[in-house]
């Protein structure tokens, strides 16, 4: 067990500068997917909460499909499936994009978290009290200002607890990256396990590391709630 830790501790945490592995990759995947997913989700949530059918129905369909299928299948589709299509392989831009395992993984994670986040934010936007919107319109605020100053700040605050859940789930979901050959924490654990034939130790170390990050994220969100949801206390 000690030899396993001695040989693999570096790979578990950060690998080498030329070839990063482990915790660093997991964190990078989590942050990148969440960031891109957030940016994507805000306009989509506005569209979903809108009364305009042409806007809300496509977004609803997208969210329904993504939430109804496993992330694993989505990842495989984007990694193995897309690259097998002739149309993709013959276009240089698409081909070079889907060739890289990293790109496929981040794309799959982003689309997935954007769908869930859209649902959360749309729910929060719909829960904005009527009175606030009426008052804003009485002040003469137009669409964009209305969203920017009134609806989004309060909706995002309301969504904070549910979004913190989604962030933890995204962290857990990054373990799938190993199946698309991205060398994240779970992949290193697999390597260690098949090298030393000590699965409990190898996966146990990974579990402890994930636990630590989860706790850190929960603590971060508690701080955020104390600041932004202070009016609820």
């Amino acid at each position, binding site marked *: 067990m000690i030899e396993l830790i001695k040989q693999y501790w570096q790979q578990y945490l950060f690998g080498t500068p030329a070839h990063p592995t482990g915790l660093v990759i997991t964190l990078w995947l989590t942050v990148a997917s969440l960031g891109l997913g957030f940016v994507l989700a805000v306009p989509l949530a506005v569209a979903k909460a809108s009364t305009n059918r042409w806007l809300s129905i496509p977004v609803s369909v997208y969210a329904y499909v993504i939430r109804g299928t496993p992330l694993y299948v989505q990842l495989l589709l984007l990694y193995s*499936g*897309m690259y097998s299509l002739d149309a993709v392989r013959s276009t240089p831009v698409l081909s070079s994009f889907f060739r890289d395992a990293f790109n496929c993984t981040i794309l799959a994670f982003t689309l997935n978290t954007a769908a869930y986040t859209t649902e959360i934010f749309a729910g929060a936007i719909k829960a904005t009290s009527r009175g606030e919107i009426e008052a804003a319109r009485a002040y003469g605020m137009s669409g964009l200002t209305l969203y920017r100053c009134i609806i989004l700040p309060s909706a995002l605050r309301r969504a904070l607890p549910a979004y913190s859940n989604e962030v933890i789930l995204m962290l857990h979901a990054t373990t799938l990256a190993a199946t698309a050959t991205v060398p994240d924490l779970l992949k290193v654990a697999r390597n260690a*396990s098949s090298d030393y034939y000590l699965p409990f130790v190898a996966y146990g170390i990974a579990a402890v590391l994930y636990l630590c990050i989860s706790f850190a994220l929960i603590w971060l969100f508690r701080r955020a709630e104390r600041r932004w949801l202070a009016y609820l206390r």
Partner: protein
Amino acid sequence: MLFEGYGRLLWNGTLETIQLSLLSLLLAFVIGLLGAAAKLSRHRWLSLAATVYTTLIRGVPDLVLMLLLYYSFQDWLNRLTDAFNLQQIDIDPFLAGICVLGFIYGAYFTETFRGGVLAVPKGQLEAAAAYGLTPWQVFRRILFPQMMRFALPGISNNWQVILKATALVSIIGLHEVVRAAQDAITGTSSKGAYHAFFFLSVAGMIYLVLTTLSNLVFIALEQRYSVGIRKPEL
């Protein structure tokens, strides 16, 4: 041929997925009830143990837990049976999958049921005790039906998660839909074609159908458990 001869394999995989999900749901349901009872009990050590259980399980990714438990489970069971000089109990992958999924999602169900139980007005339970109902009768007639109404959204959510988690079980070797699709892809690739996109889309479609059917079932269940409740006028 529609599925290049792999239709049967995909169908078997679908059945396996459904069986796995339902049985895991059952196990997780039972563990969840026990866990919620433990968490809400008066004994400090019980609630502490339950809290440790839910925190650990929800803080670690399910794939890591699956890999951890899949190999360790059999190992511990072997040690147990060895210690008592018993015949080794064999856990086949299907049973292992159920145990692992049930164990993991039992933690999520614990939280769901805990929230559900807390939402039932305490007065109901006090009145039931005053009537002289035994604890089991209180649970069966008073607590459970009312708790289900509050717990139903959480249960439907967890069910969908279990259904999708069965896709991960293919990684530890079970023959469910995703593994069947991958086998189909490999099988047809040797004939010179590479229908990865097609078979994976089929797998995705199957899941979509399953989740849609589940949604319909839950809408029906919600109507049944909300009998007599007036919806708030918005």
